[in-house]
């Protein structure tokens, strides 16, 4: 029996030791390391260690700084970027980084879209290319399937070749041009985009090493290519030793849920400034366990702490707890459609009712008694102070008397005649506790009573996205360093507009801001601020608080900026060992 046990231990891979220079616990399981599909914060964090876009991130400020391109020119109309790739830009296998690698990655992104493909739409012709390619692929697939059905007889299939369909793949987007020597890239945008350098640093614009990916391009993939015209890569191209990257680190080992080790890329152009030789991500399933492991000293940086643990540590005054403003807002989403999911008329379709609800909340009570991380109660939607020069509008006033009057004007004096609606939330985290507080306040201040409905997360998202709710807990985190990462959500055409709120003036202002040609960048920001005030006046959302984030690391750890976006540039990260 003991022999059996010993054998099993060997088989399960216990007995490994690691000597990483820097160890950290990430936010959760890695979803994917394919830049096309990265969307979770933990994936993107590792992504920045492995790849480098045309712009990289400044280690301290996370502002875009020249990365894979060392010389960047912007045309006077601010629409054309010319990127000169570095002479010493190398992949982790030593081969040079060329413009082909970028064009390959971007066309792949458009052919096989992922969560952030829309960020490429700023490039002239990119969106059209995506549509044209999808149409081409569908046509080709239909032609192939028709041939396949006709040639179902095994012998005939063997004898006849599939027809080359008479449709041609579209040419690559006109906004992407490369020089002969594959050393210069020219990107033309549809209109000036103030934060385009940020987009260039983001994973959706990372280059990819096609040569290494082609190793996993097997017969099945070739067959799919013949049928659909799309090069579909097996997601396993990201697993070591297959993955070749151009960032400060390469992926040395990755065992599912056991460990992930990054090693310094010996060919990285700025290798002299890469501080840690090896970085290990320790997998933790349970936040309490993660904290105990950090506390035992075997982990240098704990990048994710639950609100409960952080609040407790904060109360104890722990010096290694680092609290800083987050990149997101916690709010309630209000269904603005004329009818509720059950077919009854929706009282929340009246903006006065929504505003009354928004004005009668004591949000401070939520942050003081439940979240307890010194969060700022929110009167607006966009967190103030995190976007440079953005003038936050005054937002929503706290005024219970005015709220009562608004409700009376809408036909529900003292809450009389107001139907009993439901507040929807997912059961994880503290959402249920918050809903209790909100419900009681509305009951006391407006005489309006709500039911509470807690469901599990996937069901919650389905209900939220299909607008099968009256009021739902919601939150939004920005993706890139511009106000539009928040405001775009409430465009009438946005897929993420979960309120069903439509306002022409808001749409127009956002459109104006997008096509703003004023040389003064604050002009555009003022337009966005005006739009945000409309959002606050109409209250399709009820802001509650702005998130705070927290890290745990001791004073010997250097190079982790307390930045709302919660990213790091791992090349500057290290732990001083005593």
């Amino acid at each position: 029996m003991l022999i059996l046990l010993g054998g099993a231990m060997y088989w399960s891979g216990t007995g490994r030791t690691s000597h990483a220079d820097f160890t950290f616990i990430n936010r959760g399981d890695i979803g994917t390391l394919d830049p096309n599909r990265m969307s979770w914060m933990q994936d993107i964090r590792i992504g920045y260690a492995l790849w480098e876009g045309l712009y990289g991130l400044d280690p301290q400020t996370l502002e875009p700084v020249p990365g894979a391109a060392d010389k960047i020119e912007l045309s006077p109309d601010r629409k054309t970027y010319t990127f000169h790739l570095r002479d010493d830009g190398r992949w982790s296998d030593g081969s040079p980084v060329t413009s082909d690698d970028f064009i390959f990655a971007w066309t792949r992104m458009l052919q096989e879209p992922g969560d952030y493909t829309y960020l490429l739409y700023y490039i002239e012709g990119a969106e059209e290319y995506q549509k044209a390619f999808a149409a081409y692929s569908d046509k080709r697939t239909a032609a192939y399937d028709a041939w396949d059905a006709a040639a179902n007889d095994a012998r005939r299939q063997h004898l006849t070749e599939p027809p080359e369909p008479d449709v041609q793949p579209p040419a690559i987007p006109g906004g992407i041009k490369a020089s002969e020597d594959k050393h210069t890239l020219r990107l033309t945008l549809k209109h000036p985009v103030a934060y385009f350098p940020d987009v260039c640093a983001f994973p959706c614009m990372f280059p990819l090493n096609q040569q290494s990916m082609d190793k996993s391009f097997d017969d099945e993939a070739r067959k799919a290519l013949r049928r659909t015209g799309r090069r579909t890569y097996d997601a396993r191209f990201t697993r070591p030793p297959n993955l070749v990257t151009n960032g400060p680190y390469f992926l040395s080992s990755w065992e599912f849920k056991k460990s992930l080790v990054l090693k310094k890329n010996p060919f990285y152009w700025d290798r002299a400034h890469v501080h840690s030789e090896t970085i290990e991500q320790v997998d933790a399933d349970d936040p309490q366990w993660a904290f105990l492991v950090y506390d035992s000293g075997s982990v240098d940086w704990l990048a994710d702490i639950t609100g409960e643990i952080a609040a407790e540590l904060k109360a104890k005054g722990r010096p290694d707890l680092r609290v800083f403003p987050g990149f997101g807002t916690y709010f309630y989403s209000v269904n603005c459609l004329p009818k509720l999911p059950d077919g009854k008329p929706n009282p929340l379709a009246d903006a006065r009712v929504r505003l009354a609800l928004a004005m009668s909340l004591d949000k401070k009570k939520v942050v003081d008694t439940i979240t307890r991380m010194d969060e700022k109660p929110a009167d607006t939607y966009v967190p103030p102070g995190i976007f440079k020069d953005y003038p936050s509008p005054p937002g929503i006033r706290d005024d219970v008397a005015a709220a009562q009057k608004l409700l009376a004007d809408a036909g529900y004096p003292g809450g009389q005649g107001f139907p009993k609606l439901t507040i929807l939330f997912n059961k994880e985290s503290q959402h249920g506790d918050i809903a209790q507080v909100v419900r009681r306040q509305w009951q006391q201040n407006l005489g309006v009573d709500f039911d509470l409905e807690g469901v599990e997360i996937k069901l919650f998202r389905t209900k939220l996205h299909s607008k099968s709710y009256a009021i739902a807990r919601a939150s939004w985190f920005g993706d890139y360093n511009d106000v539009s990462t928040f405001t775009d959500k409430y465009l009438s055409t946005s897929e993420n507009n979960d309120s069903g709120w439509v306002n022409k003036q808001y749409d127009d202002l956002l459109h104006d801001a997008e096509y703003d040609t004023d040389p003064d960048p604050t002009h555009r920001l003022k337009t966005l601020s005006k739009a945000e005030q409309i959002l606050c006046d109409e209250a399709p959302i009820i802001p509650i608080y702005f998130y705070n984030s927290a890290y745990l690391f001791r004073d010997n750890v250097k190079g982790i900026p307390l930045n709302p976006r919660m990213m790091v540039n791992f090349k500057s990260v290290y732990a001083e060992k005593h």
Partner: protein
Amino acid sequence: MVRFIVWRLVQFPLVLAVIYLITFFLAWVAPGSPFERNDRALDPVALHRIEERMHAQHWYKFLAYYPRQLLLHLDFGDSLSYEEWTVNDILKSALPVSITLGLFAMVIATFAGVGIGTLAAVRRGGPVDWFSLGLSLLGISIPSFVMAAVLLIVFGAKLKWFPLGGWRTPWDMVLPGIALSLLPMAYIARLTRVSMLDVLGNDYVRTARAKGLSRSKVIWKHCLRNAFLPVLSFLGPASAATLTGSFVVEKVFSVPGLGQHFVNSVINRDQTLILGTVMVYSAFVLALNLVVDIGYAVVDPRIDVTK
């Protein structure tokens, strides 16, 4: 006997097929998509492409692809939530961990449980008996997440006697192993005690003592063998449950085993992984039940399993 085994083996695939279908449809009708990752709605084109790649556009597309792959290549397909890993990869990585931890726990549970149970029966009414009763009550009634957390915090974090868990060195196994063994140990101790008391009263025990055998030899050799029968029937399903991992213990100690996937795959709506874990678990239960049935016949030839 052979006919019995063959007959049971013939039943296996049928039972597994039924389990597969039921599990699949239960997972399929649950709302929510495995491909949506966060609060952002996925672009419809992107969603369509991924569904197509994963053969998950319709239930019939899914059933037309995956069961065939499973039968022909023993391949459960790609995980829908961990894109770089196939379900086989995940099982290959997680199952050995759970089996090792489970074996370790079952070794503790069996030896300690049988030992305590036997001593309690022999010294009936004495302090050992009371101790065993107390231990069993605690083992059975304290939920494992409480026990695991107490072990973690007291022996791992405060006293630092053992490492906190994870899966690096063999020592990491101690605390999760003990946490996992307590429940089966408690049952085994109780079962052993009861059946031991029963056996001790038998005539052959008196005969064995009368012919001059030592007390300990009679107890540990003659009596235990008979008293072990009910324990054996418990060991089968208990091993299946323990070897395939426990969600709670694995989570508390961050052990990268299979147990967590039973719950996480459902939360993620990762249909292929749900099916993978359920099928492995079912196969374990079926196989171990068969082993137990055969074990019965070996331990006690009076039992005719074919009837």
